């Protein structure tokens, strides 16, 4: 059914909201990538089956025209606390169950859906406290502000009807009928929205520059959904969880700048995001929210997906444009910039997923409301993926300017297994590390840049003292070496040189001259590379050398790896004071390098030891040490 005008849309919105109002319970099964990996698909299917088997009215789509008191079973977007998955939420009780398997479903249907009782064993329980209303009472959520993710965990991620029922596409209606293009751009500019993809360029300014150029014959609106930073999955979650929010933002951008053709460039490693976007685009097209003469306004916007094929560099704007054109994804020299000559050499607005997803609420609630969150220079909220050696991993959303301490300790619950905090890698391979001294630094674009890192798209990888920073630098150089497109010399040749030096240092073959050489190479690569990937490639090295120079010197001069990671630089030893002679290590050693008699301290023969770490992993006395 196509909406031909605003009245059609409003009538449908009323109808969809009424259908939602008729439900008795809503069962939301988290279907983010994390929960899907933990088996949530089977849980969802089992719910549908079990509710039907119990003779209860079950609906998975509004097309079914469900009767009063029906059970609405839906796949929803990422609830955030991936570690607890698969998560299930039962509304209107606001009740959360964690680690749900298909085998638990019958009991939930019987107790909770039929009788309104709580299945206690599935409620999150930490340190003796239970958290039935996870998103309001669990510490992980308390300091979060979920604006962008408000729908994730509340409505279906595959239903445009539910999105419309809760006010979706209202911003589009406002932009189409109550605002001029200039007013839309002014609102976005006033909100201070800065690009969430890494550089933090003001979105309104970019739109302004494209708006003044002629559309002869076409201008493009492109979404960068090539979230390639390892350790980052925010955009993935937005696309999977609330795809219409981003699509609505893109249509509004199109109206504002006079662009009628849109592309979403999404990486192929996100099959589920591709699937959800495909569903969402088709739904929007069917209802006439995409296509010609949207809601009878005379405005047009066409949108299609362009799938990436596994090249990190395509996250760079001009490389992305080449890739959309079907070419090798190498960057272009600038100027001209993308706003002037982008996709097919036409004026192009390029923003990332999160930036577009912010647009509908700015239009609907206004720039002043938006500026009520975050800091003066970086308004709004920001999503981060919190991963690494932290207790609660997952997807979080906080106001810009929240401190690292709040994120790591209040939200993340501190480090895993009583490790001691050492650093957090922010901004992926282009970013840097933040350490103890930055724990109270407000995370916003400018503050983070000042200390030599970038917010980037928002990946936070937390590392404890058992992580070797030299090895982490080597790891990132390995990554960039592999992903360098090979077009410009400094990046193609320079990065492998740095990587080779780091390889040597981690093997204990480095010299102090190597450190100077790395500094020089890094400076050259930074200055002379063609694109953002090259210019930022040495950042992990520069930032670890800046904050962990001691560790480099330990590797080079003392030939030691303080974290006990670089295998050539330590041997395993058994501390005779701690060893109780339980023989567990000797029994598990794959090469019989450990000898000793029962109840006597054991000994490792370093000439036989292959440093596999099995003994250390098995020792209950912490008696095995790297020296």
């Amino acid at each position, binding site marked *: 059914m196509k909406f031909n005008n605003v009245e059609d849309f409003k009538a449908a919105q009323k109808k969809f909201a009424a259908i939602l109002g008729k439900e008795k319970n809503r069962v939301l099964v988290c279907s983010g*990538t*994390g929960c*899907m*990996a*933990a088996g949530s698909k089977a849980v969802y299917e089992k719910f549908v089956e079990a509710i039907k088997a119990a003779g209860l009215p079950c609906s998975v789509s509004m097309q079914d025209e469900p009767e009063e008191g029906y059970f609405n079973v839906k796949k929803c977007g990422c609830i955030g606390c*991936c*570690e607890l*998955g698969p998560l299930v939420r039962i509304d209107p009780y606001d009740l959360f169950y964690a680690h749900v398997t298909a085998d638990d479903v019958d009991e939930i249907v019987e107790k909770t859906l039929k009788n309104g009782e709580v299945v206690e064993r599935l409620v999150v329980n930490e340190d003796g406290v239970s958290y039935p209303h996870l998103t309001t009472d669990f510490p992980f959520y308390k300091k979060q502000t979920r604006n962008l993710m408000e729908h994730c965990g509340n409505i279906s991620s595959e239903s445009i009807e539910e999105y419309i029922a809760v006010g979706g596409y209202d911003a589009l209606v406002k932009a189409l009928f109550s605002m001029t293009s200039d007013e839309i751009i002014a609102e976005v500019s006033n909100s201070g929205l800065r690009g969430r993809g890494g550089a933090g360029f003001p979105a309104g300014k970019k739109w302004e520059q494209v708006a003044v150029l002629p559309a002869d014959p076409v201008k493009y609106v492109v979404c960068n959904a090539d*979230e*390639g*930073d*390892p*350790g*980052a*999955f925010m955009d*993935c979650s937005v696309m999977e969880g609330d795809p219409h929010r981003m699509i609505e933002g893109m249509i509004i951008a199109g109206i504002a700048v006079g662009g009628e053709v849109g592309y979403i460039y999404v990486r*192929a*490693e*996100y*099959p589920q995001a591709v699937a959800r976007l495909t569903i969402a685009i088709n739904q929007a097209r069917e209802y006439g929210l995409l296509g010609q003469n949207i809601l009878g306004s005379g405005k047009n916007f066409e949108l299609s997906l*362009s*799938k*990436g*094929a*596994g*090249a*990190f560099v395509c996250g760079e704007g001009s490389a992305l444009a080449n*890739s*959309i*054109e*079907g*070419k*090798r*994804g*190498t960057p272009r020299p600038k100027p001209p910039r993308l706003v002037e000559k982008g996709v*097919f050499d036409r004026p192009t607005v390029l923003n990332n997923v999160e930036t577009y997803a912010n647009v509908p609420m700015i239009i609907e609630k206004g720039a002043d409301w938006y500026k009520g969150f975050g800091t003066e220079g970086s308004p709004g909220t920001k999503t981060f*993926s919190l*991963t*690494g*050696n932290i207790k609660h*991993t*997952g*997807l979080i959303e906080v106001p810009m300017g929240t401190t690292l301490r709040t994120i790591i300790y209040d939200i993340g619950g501190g480090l895993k297994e009583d490790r001691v905090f050492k650093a957090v*890698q922010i901004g*992926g391979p282009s970013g840097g590390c933040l350490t103890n001294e930055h724990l109270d630094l407000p995370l916003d674009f400018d503050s983070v840049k000042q200390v030599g890192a970038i917010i980037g798209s928002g*990946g936070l*990888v937390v*590392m404890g003292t058992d*992580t070797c920073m030299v090895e*982490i630098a080597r*790891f*990132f150089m390995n*990554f960039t070496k*592999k*992903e360098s*497109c090979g077009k410009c010399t400094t990046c193609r040749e320079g990065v492998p040189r740095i990587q080779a030096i780091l390889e040597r240092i981690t093997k204990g073959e480095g010299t102090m001259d190597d450190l100077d050489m790395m500094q020089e190479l890094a400076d050259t690569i930074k200055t002379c590379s063609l694109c953002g990937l090259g210019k930022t490639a040495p950042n992990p090295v520069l930032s670890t050398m800046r904050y962990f120079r001691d560790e480099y010197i330990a590797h080079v001069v003392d030939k030691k790896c303080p974290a006990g990671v670089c295998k050539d630089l330590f041997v395993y030893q058994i501390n005779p004071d701690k060893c109780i002679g339980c023989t567990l290590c000797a029994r598990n050693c794959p090469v019989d390098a450990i000898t000793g008699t029962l109840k006597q301290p054991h000994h490792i023969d370093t000439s036989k030891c292959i440093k596999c*770490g099995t003994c250390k992993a098995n020792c209950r006395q912490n008696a095995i040490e790297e020296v």
Partner: protein
Amino acid sequence: MKTDFKLIDSILEQHGSDKSKVIGIMQDIQKEYRYLPEDALKYVADKVGMSYSKIYGVATFYENFSLEGKGKYVIKCCNGTACHVRKSDDVQAALWEATGMKPGQHTSADGVFTIERVSCLGSCGLAPTVMVNDEVHSKMTPDKMRALVQEIKEKEGVK
């Protein structure tokens, strides 16, 4: 497997025989054959009006395209940052050991296993992760990796 040019034609028709569509076209061909057969690439180049060297350049630029066949089980071991700090190297080592393959080896001689190292599967919250064909296995350990390989070996009757 012989290349079915009728199939290639239908893929070309879906996308339109246009130079700018070659990435999507190659993705669909790879979906069918699990790699890009040389004759198919030459055929597509001809149809969209591109030289073979150009299309070869595009195909080899992107990580996802393969010019050689793959094993029955494609095991992608994630080595993104989150997986790396949770010791994915040990999982990778266990994978090589259990399959009897060497670092750098792509497909096992019997055609059962293909090992690929990838840089992020997006399930960072459950690191380290491994993907076997389309199925993600989370919170991996070297022991779980060995068990997984053993399971496949038993199913396929590999010793």
